[in-house]
């Protein structure tokens, strides 16, 4: 018997797929989500076992190439100074993200008008603001209102503790007269909607065993499934198929047994982020690519990591990484020698193994007799930050299909070609210099940095950009493909520019915004 068509088929159960599934559920349409990974079991997260740090370097590593679960696919990122980080499973990247949860700023949507670079978005901050609010309620955000770096908004929970590390860094920032504020975090500082409050496991980035961190497997998905959405795991989509009239007809995927299946659908929504979405489109015979821009304009956030060591003991292995941020250098100031800007995301410290591994790698921890004395001067005495630099779109930074490398189903793997721009290099240099000043002002006796951070390809954006002009964009201003009128994209690939902040909150707000557009246009959706 042929498989019955579904009304809406969502590919990917991560940050955006979960949000749009939940939002569309109220329509009572038959909604199916196909996810290539598994449901996660929080009781089996690394922080529940004595090998918690080892597992972060193995089956919970953020690089799919090292993690190499059977639910992962390989990525050829040899031709990029920044390596890809992701996670494949229900919750997607939110399983491993830190939960650092800033919004975009009004200027982020108007970079061409205000700073003469790249393109403006076809939407603005005011358009997304109600969706940010709705997403905040679903995810649960801790923080503090009144940040002078942002338009007013109200986090619903108290900020995460400042702790010894945050207070030390804050004193340094205050000496310099520079901005800082408690970070908005998708981590429950209080019991919230059935989720228990954070108990400072200090291991947010390999899954939160407590459930305090808002990964979508514990936020949106339970609500979406209660509302009738069907979620099938271990289903890897190979390609989107078309009717003769050019409309999407469904997808071909490999099920949990590795068998090829066809699932017809009236509407297809891609939610696989900027690598996975581009990969599927490119593997679908040029689908939605009359602009030629699918896979192009890949943006990361070039990161710098800067750390300092202090005489006094700091938070070390205690507490969530999230703490405070600074946006002193966020908005464009031409005197700095670059356009746009960056966020400092401050972190607390390191667990014992990572303190040893990293310190040895950077030459701070010796072999032999002096090992123990040196380690005790390092462990729990380190804190610092990352700089999240805005990356501007350039067409030569791109995702293509690798001609040789394939996943376990024989689907071509993505290949990344990326070069760091001169603007990004200048921004990274500036960030390293300012961060060093902060750490010295705070009392650090030793400062180290890495820029760009090689393993920092966490934020993936831009490979199917949104816009009004079909020749210069892949989807329109409400996420529908210009070419295929029953195909939508809701993940980071539709970003026009990257801003200088973590993207997940904006990805989810966009997904809710696209969902509302679909719901309000149901009668004319394909016109």
């Amino acid at each position, binding site marked *: 018997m042929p498989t019955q068509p579904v009304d809406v088929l969502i590919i990917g159960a991560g940050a955006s797929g979960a949000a749009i599934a939940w939002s569309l559920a109220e329509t009572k349409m038959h909604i199916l989500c196909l996810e290539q990974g598994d449901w996660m079991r929080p009781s089996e997260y690394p922080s529940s076992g004595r090998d918690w*740090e080892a597992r972060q370097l193995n089956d919970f590593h953020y690089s799919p190439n090292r993690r190499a679960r059977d639910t992962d696919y390989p990525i050829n990122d040899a031709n990029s100074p920044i390596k890809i980080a992701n996670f494949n499973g229900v919750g997607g990247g939110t399983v491993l993200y830190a939960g650092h949860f800033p919004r975009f700023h009004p200027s982020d949507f108007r970079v061409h008008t205000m700073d003469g670079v790249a393109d403006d978005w076809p939407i603005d901050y005011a358009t997304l603001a109600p969706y940010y609010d709705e997403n905040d309620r679903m995810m649960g955000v801790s923080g503090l209102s009144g940040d002078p770096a942002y338009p007013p908004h109200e986090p619903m929970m108290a900020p995460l*503790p400042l702790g010894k590390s945050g207070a030390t860094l804050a004193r340094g920032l205050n000496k310099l007269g520079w901005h800082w504020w408690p970070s908005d975090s998708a981590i429950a500082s209080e019991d919230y909607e059935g989720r228990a409050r954070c108990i400072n496991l200090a291991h947010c980035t390999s899954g939160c065993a407590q459930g305090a961190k808002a990964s979508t497997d514990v936020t949106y998905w339970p609500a979406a499934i209660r509302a009738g959405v069907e979620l099938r795991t271990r289903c890897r989509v190979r390609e989107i198929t078309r009717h003769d009239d050019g409309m999407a007809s469904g997808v071909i995927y490999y099920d949990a047994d590795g068998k090829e299946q066809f699932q017809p659908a009236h509407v297809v929504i891609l939610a696989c982020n900027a690598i996975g979405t581009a990969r599927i489109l490119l593997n679908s015979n040029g689908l939605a690519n009359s602009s030629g821009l699918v896979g192009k304009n890949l943006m990361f956030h070039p990161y710098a990591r800067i750390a300092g060591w202090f005489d006094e003991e700091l938070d070390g292995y205690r507490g969530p990484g999230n703490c405070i941020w600074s946006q002193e250098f966020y*908005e464009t100031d031409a005197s700095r020698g670059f356009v746009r800007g960056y966020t400092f995301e401050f972190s607390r410290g390191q667990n014992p193994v990572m303190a040893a591994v990293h310190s040895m790698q950077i030459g701070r921890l010796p072999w032999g007799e002096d090992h123990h004395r040196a380690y005790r001067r390092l462990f729990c005495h380190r804190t610092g930050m990352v700089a999240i630099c805005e990356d501007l779109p350039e067409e030569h930074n791109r995702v293509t299909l690798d001609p040789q490398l394939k996943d376990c189903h024989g689907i071509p793997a993505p290949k990344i070609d990326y070069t760091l721009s001169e603007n990004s290099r200048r921004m990274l240099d500036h960030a390293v210099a300012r961060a060093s000043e902060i750490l010295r002002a705070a009392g650090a006796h030793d400062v180290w940095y890495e820029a760009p951070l090689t393993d920092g390809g966490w934020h993936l954006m831009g490979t199917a950009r949104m816009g009004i002009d079909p020749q210069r964009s892949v989807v329109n201003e409400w996420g529908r493909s210009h070419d295929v009128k029953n195909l939508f994209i809701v993940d980071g690939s539709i970003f026009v520019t990257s801003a200088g902040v973590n993207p997940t909150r904006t990805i989810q707000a966009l997904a809710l915004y696209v969902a509302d557009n679909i719901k309000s246009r149901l009668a004319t959706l394909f016109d």
Partner: protein
Amino acid sequence: MLSDDQRRTLRRIAEMMIPASTDYGVPSAADDAIFTDILRSFGRDEPHVMTVLRELGGFADLDPAGRQARVAQLREQHSEALKGLSSVILQCYYRDDRVMRSLGMEPRPPFPKGHEVEQGDWSLLDPVRKRPKFYREAP
């Protein structure tokens, strides 16, 4: 499965990297319990571990100066492999009960007990609260 020579080499490297310390009351990384843990914990670094052991045949029988020279050579020629091996040894050493206790930590995983983090001095935020908004309004 490692050969006897490879096991002896690995134990020598572990001891060179982290010797025992009476000052801190901790064993070396070649301690029996820790070494047993190392042997079963190569994980994704197994190719790196095997590269090092292949390059260091006969290592355990060298004198101390000879071993230092071979490690220095390895650091030049196979730095990624040595990083991988070092990571495995450190992962096992710094989760040992005796070592964690010597660092003032309880020998347990983070969950479910968690940790205490002090709130910190929120009055530090007072000067920032007084600052006028500085984000740019967009047209």
